[in-house]
């Protein structure tokens, strides 16, 4: 073990190892023990927080999910997998999980495509870059509460700007947040406005790393702007796109704030995501143990999705 450590180190710094012959017998052993100490020393502050506020809650949450624990203090005893069994038979849990997945599917597509379009437009080399960047990205800086206030006001069926504009175009009024068939889409629109700027910046950064020679060569060959976009830009962006889709799916799965603030999960539970269901069973239903069980079913689903994504990207690279 010690020799492998030493050799790994010396491959990293061949000069030091060979250039300091005066004290060879003492130095290696001393610095190795010291580095074990200092390595863990540097890691300790993070580890303390990591163990106390991440690892412990995860483990304790698993324990809680196996008990009938409630906020009122009753029944701390272990009840095995009863909470899980109940959750799996709970139509409300499945519905909220379904809403979360539905939101994830219908939000990811526009959140990636619109970001790509925004970045591609700016990549043409438009004047006043800062102005476009600012307008596309600024909403990302807002708190969810601000976004919700803005959109609840704009979605207002009678007084809202959106219905008013639509009616000028001859489109009948829509009960944006009150129609179970429309409410989730209203949330998606608000979310798109709010967060697309982040993906946009990722795309913009990636486009700037594509070497200009590619485009120069292509235009010498007579390729137009569209051709260049589809034959050079898009293929070069594949790894970025994979990453953005991955991050977006994980972010969308966590949806809670906007929904809770704009529709409170309604109408009729049609927008209630699983995080809200976890929150409600725990804090308004006082069933901490049951709520924890739902958390872990949700967590399991996220792990599953992450593993699947990882497998897919692995295969693409291979």
């Amino acid at each position, binding site marked *: 073990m010690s020799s492998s*450590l030493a050799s*790994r180190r010396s491959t*990293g*710094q061949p000069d*030091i190892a060979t250039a300091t012959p005066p004290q060879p017998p003492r130095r290696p052993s001393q610095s190795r023990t010291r*580095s*074990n100490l*200092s*390595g*863990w020393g*540097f*890691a300790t*502050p*993070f*580890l303390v*927080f990591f163990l106390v*506020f*991440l690892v*412990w809650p*995860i483990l*304790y949450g698993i324990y*809680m999910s196996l008990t009938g624990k409630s906020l009122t203090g009753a029944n701390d005893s272990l009840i095995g997998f009863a909470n899980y069994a109940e959750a799996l038979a709970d139509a409300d849990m499945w519905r909220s999980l379904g809403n979360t997945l539905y939101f994830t599917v219908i939000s990811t597509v526009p959140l990636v495509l619109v970001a790509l379009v925004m970045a591609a*437009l700016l990549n*043409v080399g*438009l*004047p006043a870059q*800062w102005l476009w960047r*600012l307008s596309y990205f*600024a*909403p990302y*800086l*807002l*708190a*969810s*509460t*601000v976004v919700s206030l*803005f959109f609840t006001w*704009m979605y207002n069926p009678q*007084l809202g700007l959106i219905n008013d504009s639509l009616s000028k175009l001859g489109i009948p009024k829509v009960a944006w947040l009150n129609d179970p068939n429309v409410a989730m889409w209203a949330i998606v629109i608000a979310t798109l406005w709010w967060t697309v700027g982040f993906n946009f*910046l990722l795309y*913009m*950064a990636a486009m*700037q790393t594509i070497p*200009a020679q590619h485009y120069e060569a292509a235009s010498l060959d007579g390729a137009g702007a569209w051709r260049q976009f589809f034959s050079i830009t898009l293929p070069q962006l594949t790894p970025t796109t994979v990453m953005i889709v991955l*991050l977006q799916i*994980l*972010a969308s799965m*966590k949806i*809670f*704030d906007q929904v809770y*603030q704009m529709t409170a999960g309604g109408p009729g539970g049609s927008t209630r995501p699983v995080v809200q269901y*976890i*929150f409600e069973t725990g804090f308004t239903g006082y069933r*901490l143990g049951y*709520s924890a069980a739902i*958390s872990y079913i*949700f*967590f399991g689903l*996220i*792990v599953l999705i992450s593993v699947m994504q990882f497998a897919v990207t692995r295969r693409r690279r291979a």
Partner: protein
Amino acid sequence: MATPTLTRPTPRTSTSEGLRRPRKKMTAGKIAALVVAAFIAVLWLVPFAWATATAFKTETDAAAPKVSWMPPSGFTAEAFVKVFQDGNIPLWTWNSFYTSAAITAITLVISALVAYALSRIDFKGKKVLMTVIIASIIIPPPVLIIPLFYQMLALHLIDTSWAIILPQVIHPAMVFVLKKFFDQIPRELEEAAVMDGASRLRIFTQIILPLSRPILAAVAIFVFIGAWNNFLWPFIATNDGALLTLPVGLQTIKSAYGIQYAQNMASALLAALPLILVFLFFQRQIIKGVATTGLAGT
């Protein structure tokens, strides 16, 4: 000694950002792109504009059934005055500011330290530690709200700022981002210091940290924005009105003011202002931050 390697990469990225390709004259395609870009920009600015227009109306005009950009009774700052008078917005802004600043400070210190160890020091268990930290990136924070709440209860931290701050300082993705940056710093820079017998901590604070300012700034901005805008955890961690952060406080305003549209929009705009100002000042760092730490997501 450190400056040449620090300054060299910075101008390179900044020039490549602005003038990557030589600007040519406006072609038809460029004009079309400009029109579409402007159209999207207008769509994206409408919510701000409409909120501003509403905030400067009288409540009567705001609630009038006829939607208008130009209110019949003219514009007034009445709503802002009322919102400011009840004093909550300044208090919540302050609460958001110091909790976010504390979260950012603690995150930076503990993440940079562990990232340095992972990047530069060989120690037993390093690989395991690295794997555990990377794996923890996929843990969705909402999963932990129930046990964390119970933990805060047990520690008697509920309804203190610590309950908001402490669980938000672990950012495994940021550790990873910092480690990757440290990896790129040439080892030769440390060699002289090692020969002189400088301690690890000294090397870290006097060589590594000064060289890492851009990435530290990026991580700081990111963590700060995330903490400032976080809703779910502060919402659960505090009920004490004096401790509410801006997003949580705003949520209570909506029900308190009921249908006072102008006041609602005035509070929303006042709440949005600080981070918009931060963005105007740090535009370049934020954009670069997204580019380099983008992997971290939200």
